[in-house]
């Protein structure tokens, strides 16, 4: 069927045939080290929204890389929505440039990746009830509340959402290595709890 074909071609597999997690979102912060006048920024910049009663920051968006930034009056910026670490840094620099052009003396200080979100597909259905039963110390599975199982791995400290279709969301990582290690750890576990399709 067209569906399964496209899902397989979208995923990257390493030489052993095992799928690799793909980054979907990078959240980073940077300190511009300068107090900002949010009202001025909101009035003069394009694509900026500022509702001081709702939230105390300017929400600015740029088209390339497609990202959203929260700019606070302390001069700190949170940049979300980038697909890679390099894009996130590029976007943060662009936001800093926009603020600079509005007349503030900015420095690009302490750029730090705060969160990486990756998704993956192991291509086989998983029995979440059995997985939750055997890994009760790490897994939370409440089908009434959420269809996915929430697996909190301790080393590395990563949270994973595991769905019955075999799709995975890995989040909470500060580095790419953590995502890869977490996936290395969980892959054999998932394979041991897969559901084999019986053709009767």
């Amino acid at each position: 069927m067209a569906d399964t074909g496209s899902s397989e071609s979208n995923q990257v597999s390493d030489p052993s045939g095992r799928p690799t997690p793909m980054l979907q979102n990078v959240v980073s912060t940077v300190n511009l080290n300068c107090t900002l006048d949010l009202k001025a920024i909101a009035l003069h910049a394009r694509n900026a929204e500022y509702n001081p009663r709702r939230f105390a920051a300017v929400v600015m968006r740029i088209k390339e890389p497609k990202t959203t930034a929260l700019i606070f009056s302390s001069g700190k910026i949170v940049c979300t929505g980038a697909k890679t670490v390099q894009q996130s840094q590029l976007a943060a620099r662009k936001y800093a440039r926009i603020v600079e052009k509005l007349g503030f003396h900015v420095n690009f200080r302490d750029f730090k990746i705060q969160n990486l979100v990756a998704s993956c597909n192991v291509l086989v259905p998983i029995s979440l009830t059995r997985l939750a039963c055997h890994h009760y110390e790490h897994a939370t599975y409440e089908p009434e509340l959420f269809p996915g199982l929430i697996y909190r791995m301790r080393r590395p400290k990563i949270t994973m959402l595991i769905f019955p279709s075999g799709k995975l969301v890995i989040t909470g990582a500060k580095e790419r290595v953590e995502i890869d290690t977490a996936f290395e750890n969980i892959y054999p576990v998932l394979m041991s709890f897969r559901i084999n399709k019986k053709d009767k």
Partner: protein
Amino acid sequence: MADSFCPDCKRPTEVVFDHSAGDTVCSECGLVLEAHSIDETSEWRTFANESGDNDPVRVGGPSNPLLADGGLSTVISKPNGSSGDFLTSSLGRWQNRGANPDRSLIQAFKTIATMSDRLGLVATIKDRANEIYKKVEDQKPLRGRNQDAILAACLYIACRQEDKPRTVKEICSVANGATKKEIGRAKEYIVKQLEVEMGQSMEMGTIHAGDFLRRFCSHLGMSNQTVKAAQEAVQKSEELDIRRSPISIAAAVIYIITQLSDDKKLLKDISLATGVAEGTIRNSYKDLHPHASKLVPSWYAKKEDLKNLCSP
């Protein structure tokens, strides 16, 4: 008649106990060793044919170890007739004005009792819910949340721990004003708190369709045959790869089984009894229909009857 040491005779002598005055008397020299001893035998005589409404042996309600003072219900009342002196009339006022440390706790216990009454739960579940609430009571992150949601979540956890789970929707129906989302969030938080306090001994298993099936069937008034068939079908459905909530699967199984029987239940009735939306039951039916021959027990319906099952 007992042996005790008499100070006058300076040796152990035989001692007589006089019940009328409560005296312990030395039989040799007549010295009273102990006077006014307290009689600890029963104060009242209760007869079998007397009404059990006032049992004079016990005073007050059952002691509740969860409350600070054990639930003592002694109050100082105003004296009858004239007010008397200042002290006696003020004592009553002062006792009631003082802040009772347990007031919020008692109020919470009362709410839990009302909720469990509406659901028809046994006292063990209610007591467990009270214990859970006491453990998480009055913690800062919980302060912001809806009080009803927290109490509902305590009740939900208590039901799960006693292996008699209730769906969140059922708990929602008796908790005034708490939404499913709020109860879910409160439940996650309380479970985390309990794990921290009790050190990892919280193992609430995942819910299964079979846990709820019996109750849903009796809400619908299904016959014993159909109930047994439904239970067997649900057992078999656990092995299939169906990605739906266990409650929806239970509802769909009930639908299949009742459609095969003489007493067909409407989707509307099943939806009311289980709390699952009609559309969801229809979709779950679509998922289960291909496996109907595997699910329905052979003693209940033959292959031809299965063909009569309307295709979704």
